[in-house]
């Protein structure tokens, strides 16, 4: 956690109060809450750090907090980045509302964000502006609904199997 102080200062000076405090999660990875408008700038800053240079996008996913509305907006995006030079991980999170679930795409910073964002779009319905090819990846194009949302039933909406032909 001590290493985080090195770039927390830089992050805060660049992005001001869009950056929250760095807390350690249960696995010891420093987790920073950032406002959605500044998340891509934060990723770019961490990517371009001379010493650590967080070059590997380990994971990009979302959590649906529908059952806990008191914690904030509905959808939480989680970016886990890793530095192969300094052997460190850091987690960035931001919350977006369900009325307009839209955020800037990270494909400009990491090429690997392309399919990860397609999967989040497919399973949660969050749109990414600036994504080169945003379409469903796991399910077929005519599928209705976004399965990993909490209001989607586990067995599906239709009692009989809906296949792409029917």
């Amino acid at each position: 956690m001590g290493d985080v102080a090195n770039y927390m200062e830089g992050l805060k000076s660049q992005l001001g109060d869009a950056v929250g405090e760095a807390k350690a999660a249960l696995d010891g990875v420093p987790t920073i809450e950032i406002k959605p408008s500044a998340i891509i700038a934060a990723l770019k800053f961490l990517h371009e750090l001379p010493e650590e240079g967080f070059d590997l996008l380990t994971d990009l996913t979302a959590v649906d907090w529908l059952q806990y509305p008191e914690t904030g907006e509905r959808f939480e995006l989680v970016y886990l980045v890793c530095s192969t030079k300094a052997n460190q991980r850091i987690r960035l999170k931001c919350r977006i509302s369900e009325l307009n679930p839209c955020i800037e795409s990270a494909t400009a910073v990491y090429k690997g964000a392309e399919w990860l964002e397609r999967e989040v779009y497919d399973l949660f319905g969050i749109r990414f502006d600036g994504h080169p090819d945003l379409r469903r990846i796991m399910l077929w194009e005519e599928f209705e609904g976004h399965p990993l949302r909490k209001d989607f039933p586990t067995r599906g909406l239709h009692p009989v199997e809906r296949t792409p032909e029917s």
Partner: protein
Amino acid sequence: MILNIGPSHPATHGAIQIVIELEGETIVRADPVIGYLHRGVEKLAERITYHQFIPYTDRLNYVSCFLNNVGYVMAVEKLVGVEVPERAQAIRVILSEMSRIMDHMVCLGTNVVDIGAFTPFLYMFNVREWGYDILEEVCGARMTVSYCRVGGVSDDLPKGVEEKILKFCELTESTMADVEGLLNKNRIFRDRTVGIGVISQQDAISYGFTGPNLRATGKQWDIRRAFPYLTYDRYEFDIPTHDGGDIWARYWVRMEEMRQSVRIIRQAIKDIPGGRIISDDFKHVLPDKNGVYGSIEGLIHHFKQVMHGINPPKGEAYASVEAANGELGFYLVSDGGRSPYRLRIRPPCFIYFQAFEQMIKGHLIADLVGVLGSINIIAGELDR
């Protein structure tokens, strides 16, 4: 011309579809379509307990099932804060390395079969059968073992299995020597693999590559060294890399990794400590059967955990292992209840398949199957 390959095709390892645009026989564009094995495992996890999810992890990367078990229980152990005893960690290391050898055998066996060499496939599947014999004796099942538990492993190693594992190591080495004798200096194999399916190190890192595919571009990066887990920091092993970034480099790196795995297994068996094989924090770990049948506390702990789950504290945890294919990560978000609030599986195959178009642009159709086999796509992990 637009050609559709798959999803039912002998060379697609599993159910994947690739729509390619051809000019003559040269590939101009490729669009992989996945999702033919999407089973909704992440959604299923939200209504079952943490223990009940362990068998589902076996079915992710089904050629090396044990590595998936380890990754998942490590994430739960971080969430809950349970220490795993050293004997259990050493047993996990031995079986992980055996699973890694078996995974590389399938990957390389099917890869070279697509290129045209059938004999190494049979030799390598023989090694898998010997591995299955040992797994059956230790875990009770050939393939989908579900041997890990939160806090340790489910059963101790039976008597006499250490000699069998050492014999397995010798047989692996002799099989590898046979296969290398057949392939390494073979003109046809070299022509079909060197310079095909190249990806540069910078692109690989930008895509998020990890594992043997990244090491085949020259970057020395291994989760066992970068974020050490289990007892890996006690053993001496090298991390092989190769600068080519092509099919030959990936083949070579996997062969060398199997040698290093054999080295780790031999050291682990020599230094295996004694002691418990599962933690004694019975609030979160299932107690042993003597305790359950013999004492009232054991019975109550067992009942609470099976009926109500382990109820970890609120928070999140991410744990990853160096799976045979790369960094396999599990991200768990808990709201204090009996089921995970969100379980995310970070599959290495998903990341590699994005870069597939870049790797085969400008090559011929015959090269497509070679490249697809070398990046080791397992549909169970790709689609979950």
